[in-house]
């Protein structure tokens, strides 16, 4: 148990790691849902060219392993003229990757909306963005809630990959400790427990959203 004592003595870096992970998931989670909501109308819209382009992007993200995508962003961006910090590059990778997934699952929710709600929305004068904002978005999000929850947990796990571009998230910090002191078991168990706790908190939050959703289900 000496190993855990070492980890405890480095709790500052573990804390930094945990904090970074949390910020990364909250930020990229929120942004990818928002971007997904903007992309979904294009995916189902009548502008065929744009819809095809967005569909291509969605398919591309779903076919690329996230680790590979992280490398692509990190090494590819500078040649496109963009110099980002490791953290920013990592966040960008998470957002770009998961927006595609969010767009796709929100598209599913969109298509499942009862036609009668759209009919009444239109009959009462809602059109275009107004229809989306007042009539469609909330029922879509409610419908997609379980899938969004799953995707957020996926983001949590994907964030661990960012260690390869030296982002100081949880995996990176504990990997640093284990390699310095040769205490792999204790380090990775600690990481596991912390990821697990974050996951439980996320599930609890999704649970409370579920309460909100239950009486408002389409």
């Amino acid at each position: 148990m000496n190993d855990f004592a070492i980890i405890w003595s480095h709790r500052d870096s573990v804390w930094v790691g945990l904090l970074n992970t949390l910020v990364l998931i909250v930020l990229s989670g929120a942004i990818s849902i928002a971007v997904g909501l903007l992309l979904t109308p294009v995916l189902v819209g009548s502008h065929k060219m744009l819809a095809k382009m967005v569909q291509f992007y969605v398919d591309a993200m779903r076919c690329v392993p996230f680790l590979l995508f992280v490398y692509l962003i990190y090494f590819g961006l500078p040649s496109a003229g963009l110099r980002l910090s490791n953290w920013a590059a990592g966040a960008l990778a998470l957002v770009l990757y998961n927006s595609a997934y969010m767009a796709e699952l929100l598209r599913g929710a969109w298509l499942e909306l009862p036609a009668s709600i759209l009919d009444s929305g239109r009959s009462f004068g809602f059109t275009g963005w107004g229809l989306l904002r007042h009539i469609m978005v909330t029922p879509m999000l409610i419908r997609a809630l379980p899938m969004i929850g799953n995707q957020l947990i996926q983001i949590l796990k994907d964030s661990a990959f960012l260690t390869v571009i030296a982002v100081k998230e949880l995996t990176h910090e504990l990997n640093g400790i284990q390699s310095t002191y040769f205490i792999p078991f204790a380090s990775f168990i600690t990481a596991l427990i912390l990821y697990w706790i974050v996951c439980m908190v996320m599930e609890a939050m999704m649970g409370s959203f579920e309460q909100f959703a239950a009486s408002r289900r389409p």
Partner: protein
Amino acid sequence: MQEKTLTPELVLQINGVSKNFSGKNVLSDVSLQVKKGETVCLLGPSGCGKSTLLRCINWLEVPDAGSIHVAGVRMGVKDNGVVKMSDHDLSEMRSRIGMVFQSFALWPHLNVLDNVMLSPIHVQKRDKKTVREEALNVLQRVGLEEHCQQFPAKLSGGQKQRVGIARALAMKPQVLLLDEPTSALDPMLVGEVLSVIQSLALEQVTMVIVTHEMQFAKQVSNRVVFMDQGQVVESADPERFFNHPQTEKAQKFLSRFHGLGHPIH
């Protein structure tokens, strides 16, 4: 069919409207006029086009031919771009037409009060405070003011439909369209909705009602329009239509309903 001159008290003027769905003629040269304060019931067998006609009035379906005027203003016609409506114009026109749906079509993520207030605030851009007051009034009128904070999922079918009616009335529409308002209801709940509609008829709210409730149509309408296979076959006051149908199709249709229909409580 002669073009009738547009007079102010004509709330609805439908002239020669036709509609095809993948080659099938759902509506053929339908003409209909509704005066302010009138209650017109559209009757006919399933598939005769009555719901489609209603949906054409507020442009949920676009007619292939003919014209529709609501309070003297023409709805756009999809005919090589002649008078095509912008989203803004469509929105404005639709806010003058109240619609009540067979499946209620309430917005599930909003409570009863918000359902009633949503469009007056965001489409008609009326003052929030006034809208709220009026919404509570209209909910009281349909007997649901105590349920204003509830969500549609918790309401019975009859309650949902009454909210639907309140929601349409809150728009202060020039005409109320009701598409089989009681067809999806449990027979026990039909009466409560029919009484609300009857009270509206007594107050001279202009209405076009598609219904299968023959007894109700007889009691509440000023005029009955009978349709079959996309055409208007007969149009008469209820007394004459129900007791002395002129056409064979109408007679055949009515023979099926002899003695049926729900009484009004």
